[in-house]
C-alpha cells in the first residue's frame, strides 16, 4: 500500500488536469464527480498508507518514496521524494479527509455557478500542492508546494473575477505571503550555504553538529523561516491578507484559509524543529508572535460585523495559539490543535456558507438574526463548532488541544504566553458567541431557506461529530517525530489549569450572552461612548496595520511607479541625443550659402590651424 503513496497527490493532480483541459465540455455533474472523487481516492490512499505505516512501523517510523532526482548541480541535488511520517500523515489526513468533506460540500455550494469546473480544477490543484508541501522530503520540494498553494489561494480568492475587489484581495494575499516566502527562500539559501543540503532529514541530522546553540547563523535561518511561516499563516506582521481573503467562495475559506494552507507555517516550524531548538531566541519569538497575533485577532474579531471576517480573525487567533504552542515547546500540542482546529473551523465556515447562501449572500451578522429555527443544521453546527472554538470543557475537541497548549506553556515556565493564551480564550468566547447569538437568536430579519441533500448534510454532520470530544480522542501519531512537551503527565496541576481555562471560556460565553442576547443596550452605549467609539474603530481596523502598510509601502511604491512611468533614465539618454539635434540646428546655420562667409571660414580655419601649429 505504501508504494502507492504517490497516488495521494497524483489523483488530485490528474483531477486538475482533466478538469482544466475539459473546460466547457464536461457537465457540472461529471465535474463534481471528478473533483470530489479525486480527493476521495486521495483520502482513501492516505488512510491505507496511514494504517500500514502505523501497523507496520519501520525503524524511524517513516516511509520515503523517491520519485525522481529533480536536478543535480554540483553539490545541490534536490530530489522529488515523498516522506510519510507521523507528522505528514497527520497533515495528509487533515488535508484529504477534511478536504474531501469540503469538496463534497462545495459541490452543493457551488452548484449552478458558471465557473463550477474551474472551481474544482483549482481546488484539486490546491490539494495536490498542499500534499506536495507536507509530503516533500526536501525543503525545495516543500517550497514548491508552498508556492503552489499560494497560487491556488490567489486563484480561488479571486475566483469571482468580475469584481475587481476580489482580484485585489487575491493579489494582496499572494503578494503579502510572497514577502514571507522570499524570506523563507533566503533562509533556504543560507541553510544550503551552511549545510550544503536542503534535504530535510539530512539537514536536521547535521544541524546540531554544525551549529552551536544560539549561534547567529542558525538564529538568522530560523528567523527567516519564521518569516515564511508568518506570511503563510497570517501571523503578525504579515497577517493583513487573511481577512480580505474571505472574498473567495466560502468552501475555499474553509479549506484553504482555515483548515489547511494557513496552518502550513505551523507545519514548517514543526518540520524544522531542530533548527528552532538550536535558536532559542527565534523559538521564543515564535511564541511571542503567536501570543500577539491571538490577542490582536481576538480584539479585532470583537467588533467585526461580517460573519466570514469574524471567522477569519478567529482563525488567525487560533493559529496564534499554535505558534504560541510551538514557541512554548509544545510541539505535539501545536499539531494536535492544528488538527482539531481544522475540524471545527471547517465546520464553522461550511455552516457559515450555508447561512450566507440561505440569506442570499448576506454576510453582515446584524442583518441576520433568529435563524435557529429555519436553519437547524447550521445552527447546531455553529453551537458545536463555536463551543469547540471556545474550548468548552470536556465536550469539545477544541478543549483537549487548547488546554494542552495552555498547560504546557504554563508548565514550561512561559507565564507570559500562558496569560496571553488565557486572556485570548476569554476573548474567543465573547466574539464567538456574539456571532452565534446575533445570527441565530433575536428577531428574524430575513427570509432564509435551508439547504438539503447529502452533499449538504453529510459534511456538516461528520465535521460536527469530529468537533465534539470524538475529535479530541484522535491523537496524532507524532511521538516518533516530535518530542513530548514540557508538562507531560502533569497530574493535578494540569487539572487545575484545565479547570481555569474551562471557567474562563464559560465566563466569556456568559458575558456574550449578557451583552448580545436581548436588546444589547449596553453594547450600544459602549459603542457610542467617548472611549469605546475610537477603540471600536481601532479594533475594527485591525489595529491599523493596513493603514500603516499602505503608508509605508504601497503609497511610496505607487508614487514612484507613477512618477517614473515614462522612465527618467531613458529620458536622460534621449535628452543627450536631443542635444545633438540642437547642435545640428546651430551648425546648419553656418551653411549660409554665401561665398564670402565660406571664404571667411577658410581664413578662420587657417588661423586655427596655424595657432594650433604654433602653440603645440
Amino acid at each position, binding site marked *: 500500500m505504501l508504494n502507492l503513496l504517490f497516488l495521494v497527490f497524483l489523483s488530485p493532480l490528474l483531477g486538475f488536469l482533466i478538469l482544466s483541459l475539459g473546460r466547457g465540455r464536461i457537465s457540472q455533474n461529471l465535474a463534481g464527480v471528478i473533483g470530489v472523487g479525486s480527493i476521495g481516492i486521495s483520502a482513501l490512499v492516505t488512510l491505507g498508507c496511514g494504517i500500514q505505516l502505523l501497523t507496520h512501523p519501520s525503524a524511524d517510523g517513516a516511509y520515503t518514496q523517491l520519485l525522481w532526482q529533480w536536478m543535480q548541480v554540483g553539490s545541490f541535488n534536490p530530489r522529488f521524494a515523498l516522506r510519510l511520517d507521523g507528522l505528514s500523515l497527520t497533515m495528509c489526513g487533515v488535508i484529504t479527509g477534511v478536504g474531501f468533506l469540503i469538496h463534497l460540500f462545495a459541490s452543493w455550494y457551488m452548484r449552478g455557478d458558471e465557473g463550477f469546473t474551474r472551481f474544482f480544477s483549482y481546488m484539486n490543484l490546491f490539494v495536490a500542492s498542499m500534499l506536495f508541501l507536507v509530503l516533500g522530503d526536501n525543503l525545495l520540494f516543500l517550497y514548491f508546494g508552498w508556492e503552489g498553494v499560494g497560487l491556488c489561494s490567489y486563484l480561488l480568492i479571486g475566483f469571482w473575477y468580475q469584481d475587481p475587489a476580489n482580484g485585489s484581495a487575491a493579489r494582496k494575499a499572494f503578494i503579502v505571503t510572497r514577502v514571507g516566502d522570499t524570506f523563507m527562500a533566503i533562509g533556504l539559501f543560507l541553510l544550503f550555504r551552511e549545510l550544503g543540503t536542503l534535504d530535510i532529514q539530512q539537514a536536521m541530522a547535521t544541524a546540531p553538529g554544525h551549529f552551536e546553540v544560539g549561534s547567529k547563523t542558525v538564529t538568522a535561518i530560523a528567523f527567516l523561516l519564521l518569516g515564511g511561516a508568518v506570511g503563510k499563516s497570517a501571523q503578525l506582521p504579515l497577517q493583513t491578507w487573511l481577512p480580505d481573503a474571505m472574498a473567495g467562495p466560502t468552501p475555499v475559506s474553509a479549506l484553504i484559509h482555515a483548515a489547511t494552507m494557513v496552518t502550513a507555517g505551523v507545519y514548517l516550524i514543526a518540520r524544522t524543529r531542530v533548527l528552532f531548538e538550536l535558536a532559542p531566541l527565534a523559538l521564543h519569538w515564535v511564541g511571542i508572535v503567536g501570543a500577539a497575533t491571538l490577542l490582536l485577532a481576538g480584539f479585532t474579531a470583537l467588533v467585526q460585523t461580517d460573519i466570514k471576517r469574524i471567522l477569519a480573525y478567529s482563525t488567525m487567533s487560533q493559529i496564534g495559539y499554535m505558534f504560541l504552542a510551538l514557541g512554548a515547546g509544545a510541539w505535539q500540542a501545536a499539531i494536535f490543535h492544528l488538527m482539531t482546529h481544522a475540524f471545527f473551523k471547517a465546520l464553522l465556515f461550511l455552516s457559515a456558507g450555508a447561512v450566507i447562501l440561505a440569506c442570499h449572500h448576506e454576510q453582515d451578522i446584524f442583518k441576520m438574526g433568529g435563524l435557529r429555527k429555519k436553519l437547524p443544521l447550521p445552527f447546531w453546527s455553529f453551537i458545536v463548532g463555536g463551543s469547540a472554538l471556545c474550548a468548552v470543557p470536556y465536550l469539545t475537541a477544541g478543549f483537549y488541544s487548547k488546554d494542552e497548549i495552555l498547560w504546557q506553556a504554563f508548565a514550561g515556565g512561559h507565564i507570559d504566553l500562558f496569560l496571553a493564551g488565557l486572556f485570548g480564550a476569554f476573548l474567543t468566547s465573547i466574539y464567538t458567541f456574539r456571532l452565534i447569538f446575533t445570527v441565530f437568536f433575536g428577531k428574524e430579519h430575513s427570509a432564509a431557506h435551508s439547504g438539503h441533500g447529502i452533499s449538504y448534510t453529510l459534511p456538516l454532520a461528520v465535521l460536527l461529530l469530529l468537533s465534539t470530544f470524538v475529535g479530541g480522542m484522535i491523537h496524532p501519531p507524532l511521538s516518533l517525530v516530535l518530542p513530548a512537551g514540557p508538562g507531560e503527565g502533569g497530574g493535578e496541576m494540569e487539572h487545575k489549569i484545565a479547570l481555569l481555562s474551562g471557567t474562563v471560556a464559560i465566563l466569556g460565553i456568559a458575558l456574550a450572552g449578557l451583552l448580545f442576547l436581548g436588546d444589547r443596550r449596553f453594547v450600544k452605549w459602549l459603542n457610542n461612548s467617548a472611549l469605546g467609539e475610537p477603540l471600536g474603530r481601532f479594533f475594527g481596523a485591525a489595529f491599523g496595520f493596513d493603514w500603516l502598510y499602505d503608508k509605508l509601502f504601497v503609497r511610496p511604491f505607487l508614487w514612484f511607479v507613477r512618477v517614473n512611468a515614462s522612465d527618467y533614465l531613458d529620458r536622460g539618454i534621449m535628452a543627450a541625443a536631443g542635444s*545633438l*539635434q540642437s*547642435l*545640428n*540646428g546651430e*551648425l*546648419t546655420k*553656418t*551653411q549660409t*550659402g554665401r*561665398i564670402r*562667409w*565660406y*571664404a571667411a*571660414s*577658410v581664413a*578662420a*580655419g*587657417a588661423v*586655427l*590651424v*596655424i595657432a*594650433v*601649429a*604654433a602653440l*603645440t
Partner: protein
Amino acid sequence: MSFLYVHGGLTPAQWVTLLPILILSLTIVVVTSAIAIKRHHWWNATISVVGLNLALLPLFVHFWVPELWTLPLPQTVTPLLGIDNYACFYMAMILVTALATATLSHAYMEGYTGNREEVYLLLLLSTLGGLVIVCSRHFASFFIGLELLSVPLYGMAGYLVKERRSLEAGTKYLVLSAVASAFILFGMALIYAQTGTLAFADIGARAGDLAGSSRSVMILGSAMLLVGIGFKLSLAPFHLWTPDVYEGAPAPVTSYLATASKTAVFALLVRYFVEARAYEMPTLVNVLSILAILSIVIGNVLALRQDNLKRLLAYSSIAHFGYLLVALIASGPLAVEAVGVYLLTYVVTTLAAFGVVTLMSSPYRDHDAEDLFDYRGLFWRRPYLTAILTVALLSLAGVPLTAGFIGKFYVMTVGADKHLWVLLAAVVLGSAVGLYYYLRAMIQLYLRQRWVQKYSAPLNWAQGTGGGMLILLMLAMLLLGIFPTPFINLVQAAGLH
C-alpha cells in the same frame, strides 16, 4: 640645377611606366579632335571610355596577372614623378572612378539639350591631373597635378550652365578652391624658402636640421599647406563648400568630385607625410588630430537631419575623411594599408550611392532626384536599385557584410594599434551618430507611400551600362565586405616603402 633638367632623356623603362599617363594624354587629344570633327555624344563617350580602359590595361595586368607582365617598378621619372606600386594602385583607382563617372555621365547626359561632349574632355583632363598627383614626389608636379585636377572640375560642376544651382556650385568651387590653392602655394613657398628644395624626400632630410625662426616658418608653411589640402579634402573647418557644390553639381560630377579628386589628394597627403617625414613634426600631427575630430563631429552632426540625399552624402564624406585622417595619424605601414583599404571601400561605396542618384535623376528637371522624399518607397518600385542604395548606405555606415565595415575595421585596427584612444572615441561616437542618418535615409526607401511618385529617369536602366556598372559596384561592395583578402593583398603590395 633645376628640376626640369633631365639627363639624357627618358629610358624605355621609364616610358613604359608612364604608359597610363601617356595613353590618357593621347586620349584627350583624340577626344578634342573628335569633338572638333563631329559632335556625337555616344562616340565621344565611347572614345573616352576606351581611352580610360587602355590606360588602365597596363595597371590591370601589372596587378592582377603579374605572371604575364609587370611594370618595371619602381621608377623615378625626372625628380617630379616617382612611379611605384603605390602610385600605380591609386592611378588604377582613379582611372576606374573616371570610368564609372564616364559611364554614369553617359546615362545622365543623354537627356541634356546643350553641348554634352565636353564633359568627357573635362573628365579626362581632371583624371590626368589625378594621375599626376599620385605619382608626384615634388611640389611642382603636385601643384601641376592639383590644378589640372581642379580647374576642369570647376567647369564640370558648373556644366549645366542653364541651371542656376549648377552655376552657383561652379562659382563657389572656383573661388574657394582658388583660395585654397593660394594657401597651398604660399605654404610651398615658405617651405621652399627654408629648405631650398621642392622634392619631398629632400624636404624631409633637411627639415630636421632647422631650428629657431626657420623652423617656425617651416611649420607655418606646412600648416598653410594643410589648410589647402584640408579644403580639397573638405575637412572641417574648411568644409562649408562641400554640400553646396555636391548639391549643385550634376550627379555624375558629384560622384567624381567625391571620389577621384579626394582620393588623389589623400594619396598625395600620405606620400608627403611619409616621404617628407612630416610625422617628425608633432605639431602637424596635432593639427591633423584636431582636424580629424572636428571633421568627424561636425560632418556627422550636420548630416543628422539632412533631407537632401546629395547634401547628406556631402556631410558624410566630411566625416569619412575624418576617419581616414585617423588612419593617417596612426602612421606606419599598416596605416598606409588602412588608408588604401578605406579609400577603396569608400570610393566603391560612394560611386554606388551617387550612381543610384544619377540614375534616378535627369537634367530635364531643374534639379536632381535628391530629396529623400523622392526615394520614399523606392523599394516597391525598383527593388534592385534600392538594394544597391541600401547596401551603399549600410556600407557607408560600416555595417558588416559590406565594404564599409572592412574599411572602418582597418581604421580602428591601426588606431588601437597606436593607442589613439581619443580619436577612436571620436570614430565610435561619429559612427553611432552616422548610423542614425544612414538608417533614416535607408528606411525611406522602404516606407510605403500612398501615391505613386513621378520619376523621370530612363526605365531601362538595368540594361544600360550605368545599371550594369552599379550592379558590379554592389557586388564589389559585398565582395569587399565578405571576402576582402584579394583586395587587402593588393593594397598591401601597394604600400609605401
